[in-house]
């Protein structure tokens, strides 16, 4: 008898917890759920903190991952109120799948790419990236930072010679699936240099790497886009308006973005 009651107890509580998670209808006292590109994590936290203080609303819950991975999760039915991606490709996938209205997609910020260098590595300038034996890490071309990186190397080939990109590519020891992993390989001292967003360097601490800035005529600008999910019942527009407002500009700047 005791055994049956015990079994009934565990099965009902297990069922309860499954249903609780699945139904998960958030009461109005919780904030928005934001699905944001890894590179946007810290700035979104800061923007959300400033915004929620300003209107005394609850803080958002922020899910950060690679743009492509997030797009996949959203298409597979993950719940979020707002999606912020590091490039159009990831956003377009979610639009094409019918989960986001294409007219709702707005550019929220711009970012620049830089070359992060391990302190002490023999890389005084961009030219030195092509020196044989240097260990370069890049993001894989399946993620936005990787695509931007390819463009950047091609642009730099116009300055440092036609074979520059080929030489740098020959030095690549790893193509990482997210841009933070690129930076991790440099801050841990395993690799010498890598192409990352200027904002990533701010996020991990400017003292941990040296930064080589890209000449203006070769610079690659990343465009960050955001849009509300059609399935969301929450009001996202005021928050979207806030993050593109003048009031938010200093926060973007503080985290290494251009709003």
């Amino acid at each position, binding site marked *: 008898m005791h055994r049956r009651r015990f079994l009934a107890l565990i099965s009902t509580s297990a069922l309860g917890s499954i249903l609780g998670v699945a139904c998960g209808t958030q009461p109005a006292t919780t904030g928005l759920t934001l699905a944001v590109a890894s590179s946007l994590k810290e700035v979104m936290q800061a923007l959300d903190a400033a915004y929620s203080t300003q209107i005394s609303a609850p803080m958002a819950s922020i899910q950060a991952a690679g743009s492509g*991975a997030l797009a996949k999760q959203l298409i597979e039915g993950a719940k979020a109120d707002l999606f912020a991606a590091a490039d159009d490709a990831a956003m377009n996938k979610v639009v094409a799948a019918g989960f986001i209205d294409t007219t709702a997609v707005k550019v929220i910020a711009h970012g620049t790419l830089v070359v992060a260098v391990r302190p002490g590595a023999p890389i005084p300038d961009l030219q030195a990236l092509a020196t044989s034996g240097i260990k370069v*890490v890049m993001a894989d071309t399946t993620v936005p930072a990787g695509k931007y990186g390819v463009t950047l190397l091609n642009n730099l080939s116009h300055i440092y010679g036609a074979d520059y990109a080929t030489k740098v590519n020959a030095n690549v020891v790893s193509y990482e699936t997210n841009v933070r992993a690129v930076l991790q390989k440099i801050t841990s001292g395993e690799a010498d240099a890598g192409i990352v967003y200027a904002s990533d360097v701010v996020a991990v601490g400017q003292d941990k790497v040296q930064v080589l800035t890209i000449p203006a005529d070769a610079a690659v600008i990343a465009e960050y886009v955001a849009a509300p999910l059609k399935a969301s019942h929450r009001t996202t527009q005021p928050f979207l308006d806030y993050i593109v407002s003048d009031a938010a500009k200093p926060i973007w700047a503080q985290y290494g973005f251009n709003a």
Partner: protein
Amino acid sequence: MTHRSSRISWLALPMLALLCLPILGLIGQSTPTTIWQALASPTLHQAVWLSIGTCAATLGLTLVFGTPLAIWMAHSRHPWLTICIDLPTVLPPAVAGLALLTVFGRTGWSGQLGLPLSFTTSAVIIAQLFVAAPLYIQATVVALRSIDDDVIAAAHIDGATTAQQWRYIIIPLARTGMFTGAALALARALGEFGATALFAGSLPGSTRTMALAIYVAAESDDAAAITMSLILLGISLLILLLIRRLDA
């Protein structure tokens, strides 16, 4: 007994569904056309051959260097030794990767001696050895300990040399356990992901094994990701079938 087990069976269903449905889903996602296209991709070939090559090396090194350690452990029965050998198999992969970097990375010991192994194929094999070899060692220790000491003592009295004891008594009795351990280690090595990503990096043809290539492809190319998953699934299935046959 039958009565009770029929009662319990409906409670068994959720776990059964959880364990089996995702595998069926993976198979259901694929169509012959997408598999055929993905199979033609050179990046897939690179990843498959790299996995096969590194896993073969891992298996060989596990047998050559794991067996002496297992024999030693079977006799020593030191609890701390067992725990040390077991630890790598239960560590989170990221911890394993960071731990390997402290020894074999550029700033680690081998790096300071001028031989950093990070970003090399050797790093892939070391990562696989670190997480997979313990499975073989554990199984071999158990198999060796299960042999009755009296049998060996009797052989000794009857004049069998140490080599003969191994050849005719110990190896035949421990063989099944050792094979099972080796097969488990091989399966684990094939699936190694986290430590490899942190320690070896992800470069096609040199460190991007199937497990890593699947992760990359999952971001963009579903067909390639699913096809490689099915190949891994097939190999794992073969290994598990082999283990079952050995156990039977």
